[in-house]
């Protein structure tokens, strides 16, 4: 990872929402090694509790479609769209039909099939952050040097 990428990643917080502790700890550790700050949620209720905290900044959510709690991954996506507009969500799951449904519910959120390569998750997060940066950049003509690597 280049210094620019590492520095940029350190500014971004990813919420990993997965009810399988062994899967969650692997992807969370990988993302931390890539320089991201990672917050973990063991079910959708924990995810919602974290997202309701105004002083906790989250940029991207990585959520399991089959996450436990009051909301499944699809409904969590819908909740995020309603309450945290602009927050990007990546759903991960295994069932193709569910993937289609998730894609409909999660208008910006791409869906990744399990088993997934953690590096692909990182690539996806980078793309989402780049999209966000493009949307929020005051001058659209020339991206800042630190964001160009994600374009």
């Amino acid at each position, binding site marked *: 990872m280049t210094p620019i990428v590492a520095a940029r990643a350190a500014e971004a917080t990813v919420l990993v929402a997965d009810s*399988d*502790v*062994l*899967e*969650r*700890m*692997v*992807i*969370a*550790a*990988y993302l*931390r090694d890539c320089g991201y700050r990672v*917050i*973990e*949620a*063991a*079910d959708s209720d*924990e995810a919602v*509790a*974290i997202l309701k*905290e105004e002083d*906790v900044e989250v940029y991207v959510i990585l959520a399991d479609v089959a996450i436990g709690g009051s909301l499944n991954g699809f409904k969590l996506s819908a909740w995020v769209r309603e309450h945290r507009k602009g927050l990007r969500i990546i759903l991960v799951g*295994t069932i193709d039909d569910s993937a289609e449904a998730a894609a409909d519910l999660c208008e910006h959120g791409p869906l990744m099939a*399990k*088993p*997934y*390569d*953690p*590096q692909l998750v990182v690539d996806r997060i980078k793309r989402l952050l780049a999209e966000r940066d493009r949307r929020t950049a005051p001058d659209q003509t020339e991206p800042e040097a630190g964001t160009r690597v994600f374009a």
Partner: protein
Amino acid sequence: MPLVPFGGTAMITSPIGDLDPDRRSPTILLVEDETLLRMAVADQMRRAGFDVIEACNAQEALDVVYSNAPIAVIVTDIRLPGALDGTAIIRIARIARPELKVIIASANPPVEAGLAHATYAKPYDVEALVKEIREMIRGAVR
């Protein structure tokens, strides 16, 4: 880096129970069901240089204990949701992974002598807890 499998056991290749104090990041298993408290304590532990695996209940904690994740210390609450509480985690961990150090961090810690290596009553000072963990890890390899 292994793939993250679906519904199966994550493949961690690190050695079990690495207690070397010179190792860059000893790993703590933090068991706490209060989401925001767990998040804050885990953050502080990571800033202190530890790797932290987070578990929200006893089942998650035992999944980690039975994996070959390189845990050095378990820090656990006692009152947890589900069929098992923190004391069950400790009793099972003692059999499965006798090398592990155990710290109780609970609002109402049990008085049973010898159940854990140290006990902290909530609200506790995380810096003091971190210091204790460092001492434990150093002591374990002397």
